């Protein structure tokens, strides 16, 4: 054990956060205010997600952290180590083996099950913020279900770009009631928001927690004549050959050479282990990774 209280936060704080989480689950999509604590990392590094994770973790949990789909970025590594140190819990990079997954900007490609919790890091929880700066007014709009403004944003997209250009943080309506910002996940992930697992969203700086319970209806907003399309690069993964995953584009030399690869590193690695090979890929070796 470490010298920290389990998972860093004191028990009273965790209780306060759990109450906010329960309220969020009871009112899907509704932003519950909570008394966000100072964490030993700067805002923007996932302080909201970390507090939610701290409140739901138990000693038996297996924890996974992904940042833009990857387990090995600085952000993911430091949060994973943070909980290894303060909670002494098991960690993994395998989606299927994790019981709690904290994520920034992605939903894992592998379908989550009913015994898994997905915790999102949220920068700006208020989907109406960009058009209506007043928090008093946006809260009233949520309360009275006045969501016309959300479509104004989509209208502006189409009028300026010919199509709905919003590619991430694409607004959704949860269970026919609250309009919600799904955090900056690509809109490719939006259909996955209807899942078996529990989804919790934490915004540290903005002091808001919200949630989507399992099997909740989540509809991406659109126009009748411009329906929602979950889009991705029209390509297969160059490493594992997957055609159904969200891809990152990588510039590989100064001559404009590029390759596409799964943004979900665990998904890609797992497929390569199974023998799938993409156009520029090589057979998987334990040490070559």
């Amino acid at each position, binding site marked *: 054990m470490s010298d920290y209280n389990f998972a860093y936060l004191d028990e009273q704080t965790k209780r306060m956060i759990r109450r906010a989480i329960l309220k969020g689950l009871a009112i899907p999509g509704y932003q519950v205010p909570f008394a966000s604590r100072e964490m030993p990392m700067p805002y923007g590094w996932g302080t909201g997600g970390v507090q939610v994770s701290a409140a739901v973790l138990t000693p038996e949990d297996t924890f996974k952290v992904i940042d833009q789909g990857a387990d090995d970025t600085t952000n993911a590594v430091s949060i994973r180590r943070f909980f290894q140190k303060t909670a002494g819990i098991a960690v993994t990079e395998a989606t299927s083996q994790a019981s709690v997954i904290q994520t920034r900007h992605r939903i894992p490609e592998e379908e989550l099950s009913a015994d898994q919790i997905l915790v999102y890091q949220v920068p700006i929880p208020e989907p109406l913020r960009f*058009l209506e700066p007043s928090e008093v007014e946006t809260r009233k709009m949520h309360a*009275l279900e*006045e969501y*016309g*403004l959300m*479509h*104004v944003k989509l*209208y*502006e997209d*189409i*009028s*300026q770009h010919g199509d709905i250009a919003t590619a991430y943080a694409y607004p959704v309506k949860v269970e026919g009631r609250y309009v919600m910002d799904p955090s900056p996940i690509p809109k490719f992930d939006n259909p996955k928001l209807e899942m078996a697992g529990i989804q919790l969203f934490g915004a540290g700086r903005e002091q808001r927690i919200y949630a989507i319970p399992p099997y909740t209806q989540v509809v991406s907003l659109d*126009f*009748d*004549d*411009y329906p929602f399309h979950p889009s991705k690069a029209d390509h297969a993964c160059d490493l594992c050959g997957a055609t159904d995953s969200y891809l990152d584009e990588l510039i590989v030399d100064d001559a404009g050479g590029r390759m596409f690869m799964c943004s979900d590193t665990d998904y890609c690695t797992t497929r390569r282990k199974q023998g799938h090979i993409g156009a520029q890929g090589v057979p998987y070796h334990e040490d070559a990774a």
Partner: protein
Amino acid sequence: MTPLLQVENIAKFYGARIGCTDVSFDLYPGEVMGIVGESGSGKSTLLNCLAGHLTPDRGAVRFDTRTEGLRDTITMSEPERRMLGRTDWAFVHQHARDGLRMNVSAGGNVGERLMAVNARHYGDIRTKAIDWLGRVEITEDRIDDRPTAFSGGMQQRLQIARNLVTGPRLVFMDEPTGGLDVSVQARLLDLLRGLVREMNLSAIIVTHDLAVVRLLADRLMVMKDGHVIETGLTDQVLDDPQHAYTQLLVSSVLQV
């Protein structure tokens, strides 16, 4: 005939100071009423009480709703009142930037009220926006420009289009021509007169400009120190004012 708006004994106080008091009148469909008075006379307070922006301390403001007839808008629930605010009512602010979203295109500004009442077809919304921009003499090629790129007169016309697109029945206007050049004012007045007649709009116009009310308003209400001191047919009040203050007001206007 049922009045569209029935105002009964409205009073609003700011502490011990009178905002406005003892105001009663009926407004019928198609009628335009002007409220004139100097700064601090209570005309803007009254307008804001009528439009639901301020809660009066006593009195009733009954509006002839489409489904349930006369309803007191002061005691109705806030969602209902806000719904009226984006359907049957319109509010034209003196400063266009108070009534427009300056970071949204002209088309988005006009379309917002449509989307607020669940219009979900981009093509239809755009067609309607173009139609309304045309009616307020803004050409179609400006539809994707933001109001920040518009002149003051254009911003004001855009505000009117944004307000009228849902076919309201009652329009509140607070100094709609204030701050505009005289030639731009004339164009706006002409436009408003045409729209009032074509749409059979009722309107309440607060202004200190007697020329504006003479051209737009059927009836006139003169306010001073929070009280209504004279009412009547617009040209009668202006040409044969009875109250000392009204006589002073009318005789103070420079003749051109």
